[in-house]
């Protein structure tokens, strides 16, 4: 009861209207103004709420709620000022003002640290500038893309030209060689008796040169082909491929006795067509360079490493000097004279290209007279 009295008429004061002598004009002015202020204040939290709901980036967490509560409280003090015009409830008005004070201080305390953050927000002019920069960048990118597209087109057309070129090499460069070789043979067959031994030997050189040139063209074409052929990966057994290659080598050189050693299986994921070119080259090299050895042995195997399997082809042939190993995989580079061992110097370049295309690596170790080992990986990461 005491609290009730204190709230509504603490010390027997009169209503605020009494101070205004109940002047209608003053009463209307005060009540009207307070009403308009209160209503305006009450509307502001709704405006803030609407803004916050529309703009994700405008949510400053509790500051928005605190500010809303603070404004509501301010509105309430003004609304209650209307009541005190007629009712001397200064206790309640004081309590409302006290609550408003707490909310004001809280909001102010939250607002001050926010100022630097608000200042840091980009201004409209800044945003316009950034936008402009972005637009320029987009334009630059578009131009770069266009340039790239044109470059790609030009590369494609160059590739087509290159293909047409290698096709023409295959077709047109071989035909004259056939003529040179063929008619040298025709000369030997039809006029052999009129040509002496030396002349016949010269014609033999002509034929061998033409055949060597034909081999060069074929090897170059094979190199060009493995560079542009599509990589078709499939489960492949290197041993099966190697055995086919060895069978062919035995057929081509039945006079050479070679022991071929390999495991039962070497399953890999690789392009079978290209891997057969790799093994055919490595094995025929091994075959070639063990020629003349009585205990010739060629081995295909693998060394399981921590992260990648290393495959190898090892022979006990003539080997090579490691000082020249940099030249091994370069086209047209040979470590042996043509009179010693035949070849075009393109085989290992082709092998290296295929290994590269699989994402693997190839290298060799050798010792003169002790044989050579070619190691390769094919990009299978564990």
């Amino acid at each position, binding site marked *: 009861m005491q609290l009730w009295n204190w709230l509504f008429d603490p010390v027997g004061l009169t209503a605020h209207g009494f101070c205004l002598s109940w002047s209608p004009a003053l009463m209307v002015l005060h009540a009207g103004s307070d009403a308009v202020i209160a209503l305006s204040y009450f509307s502001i939290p709704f405006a803030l709420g609407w803004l916050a709901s529309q703009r994700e980036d405008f949510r400053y967490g509790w500051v928005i709620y605190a500010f809303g509560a603070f404004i509501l409280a301010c509105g309430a003090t003004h609304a209650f000022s209307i009541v005190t015009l007629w009712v001397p409830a200064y206790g309640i008005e004081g309590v409302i003002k006290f609550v408003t004070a707490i909310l004001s201080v809280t909001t102010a305390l939250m607002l001050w640290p926010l100022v630097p953050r608000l200042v840091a927000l980009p201004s409209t002019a800044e945003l316009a500038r950034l936008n402009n920069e972005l637009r320029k960048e987009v334009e630059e990118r578009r131009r770069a893309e266009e340039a790239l597209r044109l470059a790609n087109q030009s590369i494609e057309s160059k590739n087509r030209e290159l293909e047409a070129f290698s096709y023409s090499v295959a077709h*047109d460069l071989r*035909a*004259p060689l*056939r003529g040179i070789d063929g008619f040298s043979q025709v000369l030997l067959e039809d006029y052999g008796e009129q040509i002496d031994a030396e002349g016949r030997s010269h014609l033999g050189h002509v034929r061998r040169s033409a055949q060597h040139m034909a081999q060069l063209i074929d090897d170059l074409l094979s190199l060009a082909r493995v560079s542009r052929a599509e990589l078709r990966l499939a489960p492949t057994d290197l041993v099966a491929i190697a055995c086919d290659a060895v069978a062919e080598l035995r057929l081509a050189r039945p006079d050479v006795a070679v022991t071929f050693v390999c495991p039962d299986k070497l399953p890999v994921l690789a392009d079978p067509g290209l891997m057969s070119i790799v093994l055919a080259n490595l094995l025929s090299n091994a075959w070639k360079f063990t020629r003349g050895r009585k205990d010739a042995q060629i081995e295909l195997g693998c060394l399981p490493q921590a992260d990648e399997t290393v495959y190898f082809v090892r022979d006990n042939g003539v080997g090579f000097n490691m000082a020249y190993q940099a030249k091994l995989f370069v086209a047209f580079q040979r470590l042996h004279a043509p009179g010693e061992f035949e070849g075009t110097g393109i085989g290992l370049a082709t092998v290296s290209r295929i290994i590269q295309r699989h994402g693997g690596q190839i290298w060799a170790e050798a010792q003169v007279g002790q044989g050579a080992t070619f190691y390769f990986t094919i990009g299978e990461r564990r």
Partner: protein
Amino acid sequence: MNSNYVFLVEDNPTDEALTIRSLRKAAVTNEIIIARDGEEALDHLFMTGHHAGRAYVGPPALILLDLNLPKIGGLEVLRRLRADERTRMVPVVILTSSDEEQDLLDSYGSGANSYVRKPVEFGSFTDMVHQLGLYWLIVNQGPPQVPLMKS
């Protein structure tokens, strides 16, 4: 001219001479008729152009067709042969320098009966022609002769 002839379509005179020599060495006695480009080949087979009005002698026993030919290419010649009733079934052997996968696909796709890459080494070349002559002219039985359709 009888319809048992070999029709060689070859633009390179050296290859022509070597092929004829090898065929003769292989004891192929059939008449050999040469065309040096695709147009001449089609004119001969279909009696058009220079060959218009000539009496029809029937299709050849065997056509040896190069791919890379002046005027009309070998593949186009092959397609037109296969599209015509008179030459639809004549055995055609593609005889070329190319061993491009695409050429093989196109040739077989267009109806070639055989595809042979001409070797450079003359011994192998002679062997190859010998085998071709033996197989296609002696071992193999060709299609029955199609009588000329009056159009």
